[in-house]
């Protein structure tokens, strides 16, 4: 009897908690479908009488969100794929190959992970300016092509593949290069997917660096564009919420679709700390 009550209480509390977590999302969606007067109604209404999807097209007309969206997609995909390629190569070298300075380099790069990226933004901005890269895709992408987090996670994954498989591939006539791409990478698929998703989320949502290196709206990414839009939209909260929804929704879908990889990725890498 007490057990049943306990279980009921557990579900009750969890449900309240989950609902609380979702309130901002629900409030956002609800507002994005209201008319301007409806947004100011007290007490607030959750479901407006008529769902105003035209708020989305209105927001799109007020600011070049399509352009921002394309920029975000280009930057996110290029960063993720480029970073993946570089990480795979480096992780393979650290995990499988023998070279002079291996320990030193490993510790050196591990150590750089401790340095907060915010500290590097100043001199990276100076570098990017010196290279005349301000307001370009290159400025948004290139500095983020190396992720030590991705390299170390992949290194661990590669090392978990038994040595004998490497020797078998060698005996079978595979070069290092072919072993990497035909055996190691397919075998590390779930890790790679996890790293990619986390990177996609990170790139898509990144704000400070794009804010600093773009002042031309042709190169703004969604978060920066959205922030700029707030000053234009002023108090038209239905438009602001529509735009916010538009920025948030792709990652939500990505997360819902590939949830298990994200959770596995965080569990694995988080625990290594």
């Amino acid at each position, binding site marked *: 009897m007490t057990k049943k009550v306990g279980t009921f209480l557990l579900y009750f509390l969890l449900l309240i908690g989950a609902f609380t977590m979702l309130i901002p999302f629900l409030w956002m969606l609800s507002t994005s479908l209201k008319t301007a007067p409806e947004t100011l109604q007290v007490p607030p209404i959750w479901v407006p009488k008529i769902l105003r999807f035209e708020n989305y097209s209105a927001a799109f007309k007020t600011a070049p969100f399509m352009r921002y969206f394309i920029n975000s997609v280009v930057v996110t995909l290029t960063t993720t794929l480029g970073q993946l390629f570089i990480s795979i190569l480096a992780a393979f070298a650290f995990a499988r190959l023998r070279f002079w300075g291996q320990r030193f380099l490993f510790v050196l790069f591990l150590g750089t992970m401790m340095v907060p990226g915010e500290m590097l933004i100043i001199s990276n901005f100076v570098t990017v300016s010196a290279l005349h890269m301000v307001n370009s895709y290159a400025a948004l992408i290139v500095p983020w092509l190396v992720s030590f987090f991705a390299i170390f996670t992949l290194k661990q994954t590669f090392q978990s593949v038994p040595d*004998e498989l490497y020797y078998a591939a*060698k*005996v079978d006539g595979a070069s290092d290069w072919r072993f990497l791409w035909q055996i190691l990478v397919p075998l590390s*698929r779930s890790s790679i997917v996890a790293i990619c998703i986390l990177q996609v989320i990170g790139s898509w949502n990144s704000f400070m660096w794009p804010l600093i290196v773009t002042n031309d709206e042709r190169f703004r990414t969604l978060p920066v564009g959205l922030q700029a839009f707030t000053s234009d939209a002023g108090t038209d909260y239905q438009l602001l919420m529509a735009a916010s929804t538009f920025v948030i929704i792709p990652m939500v879908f990505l997360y819902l679709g590939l949830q298990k990889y994200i959770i596995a990725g965080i569990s694995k890498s988080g625990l290594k700390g």
Partner: protein
Amino acid sequence: MDVTFKNVTFAYDNKAILHHIDFNIPEGKLISILGPSGCGKSTTLNLISGLIQPDAGQILFGDKPVTNLDALQRKVGMVFQSYALYPHMTVLENIIFPMKMAKVPKTERVAKAKELAQLVHIENEVDKHPAELSGGQQQRVAIARALAKEPAILLLDEPLSNLDARLRVQMREEIRRIQKKTGVTTVFVTHDQDEAMHISDQIMVLNDGRIQQFSTPNQLYDQPQNLFVARFIGSPVINTLPFAPFKDAFAELVAPEILAQATHIGIRSESIVSAPHQEAVLVKLPGRITRHDQYGRELLTEIQYKDQQLASTNFKQTADGDFQAFYLLKKGVFLFNAAGHKLMGGEADA
């Protein structure tokens, strides 16, 4: 193709693993490299494969020096202890992989892979992934994959150690059958003397990075060149006892210089009998039975001779209080000097 090692040395972390090894593996034979763990047998195999290179010495395949060629260039096939099948590929893809690396035309390699699958009796499993196969089946796939590139030499690194006892016997016969059928020169690494004895044309016994003896299984058993080989080969383990208590009894039988040098005597358990039939007898010794047991078809008798205990598996007569003496047969009794070298024993000089 035959394999020759000339004065090969290999060290790891400044610790010598192989000391100046010389041998020749004849073409078309199945050779076992046998020894306790850490003796250098896997290192020897890896040196043949080209996965590692020696620090000194020369390795030849036929007449061709291959010392500095890597595994890719040597054209060897290898079966690993864990089989090392590619888990993300089907059985057929696994077998095809080496041929793909060698850029064999597509239709040809599929046909060849199917042929090999038939040879190792896994033709019904070719579309499965390795994880869906039993240990024995994985083993078969690994052999087929190793044979796919038509290797000059087939190397097997403790291939049976992950199988249960019954399957191990079965697979060992399979390997022998496949080797005979293909005629490929095969090197088989194992720590199990019984396995080596059953499967090999010749056995190389390794210990401490040195070859102890390289001969046929029967020669190893009948004519061990040293105490290590005598002890390592045969089950139950040969009786090894200090020679001193036997010295008087052997005074008439062996040359005085041998008598002077011998420190240990090795006696195979089947060479201790209660009454000889046709076998040549070496000596009759006084003693008494302290224990006599039968396990299925196995007999085990413990005999006390002076203050020494001997074990016999060939003692037909049951224990009687009045039993006074036993016989040592000529075959299966060896004398060793302090360095462990054999001084006497074995048919060659008996």
